[in-house]
């Protein structure tokens, strides 16, 4: 079985357990405050890490290339409240342009 299929199976089972725990088992009781805080903050840590690693990571190396230009442009576009499509298009175009002139 390929790695992608193994991950798919584990994530399907695990994600469904998380999704259904409230409706099937816990009911509408509220989570402990500490746990709720961790749950609220976890995505910010992981998404920031994913943004950075997918920009400058290449296996076990840090590589600074045209992707960095794309990320900066994406940040500027988001700051200017651009919609998602525009953010992606501008980031890709900036990266392609940086490659062209490099």
């Amino acid at each position: 079985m390929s790695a992608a299929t193994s991950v798919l199976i584990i994530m399907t089972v695990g994600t469904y357990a998380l999704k259904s725990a409230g409706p099937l088992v816990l009911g509408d009781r509220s989570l402990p405050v500490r746990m709720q805080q961790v749950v609220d903050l976890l995505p910010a840590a992981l998404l920031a890490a994913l943004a950075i690693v997918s920009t400058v990571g290449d296996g076990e190396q840090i590589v600074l290339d045209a992707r960095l230009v794309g990320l900066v442009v994406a940040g500027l576009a988001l700051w200017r409240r651009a919609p998602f499509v525009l953010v992606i298009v501008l980031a890709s175009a900036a990266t392609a342009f940086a490659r062209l002139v490099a």
Partner: protein
Amino acid sequence: MAPFGIVFGAAAATAGLNMWQAVGYSALVFGGSSQFAAVEILGDGGSVASAAIAGLLLNVRSLAFGVIMARALAGPWWQRAAMSQLMIDESTAVGAAQEDLRWRRYGYLVAGLGVFGVWNLTTVIGFAVFSDAGDLITDLGLDAAGPAAFLALLWPRLVSPAQRRTAIAGALIALALIPVAPPGVPILASMFGVAVAAVWPPTEPASPVDEVSS
């Protein structure tokens, strides 16, 4: 949502998944940012464990959504079991915005089913269009679409100082670990950014003025 599905389909194709795997993620896991994270880590040569755990950590919030929506999703166990698959940000946001329990349930189901349809359809389109793209990916700068998408997902969360501290701590932890840890592990380790943000800086609440980073 639709363009995000296309970006996911493209990312799955670039990471070497086949069409069934790509659609499997979108239909069975059905959690946008977690699918993205897993595919990114696999594409970078990360282990099964690191990809799966990073993905699941991004879905822990579904647990919180579940207890919020539980009362509105009452009924026979098989109905609750089926409706639970739609437990995502959008369905919870639409459902929880309604007062009446019946409308909460209705909003949750309509938003959940709508996103499910669009998400899976656009995953297929994104995969089909970019599966044989090869050099086109780098020529068009599409390898920057992933980073841009992660940043776009992160952006709306950065409204509070605690979220910003967590994001900065998570990013720095991951960056520091890239040269020394196997692919995927820096992403996983970023979860400790939550702990760092809880203790630093020690004075609460922090002034939002000196926290603004961009």
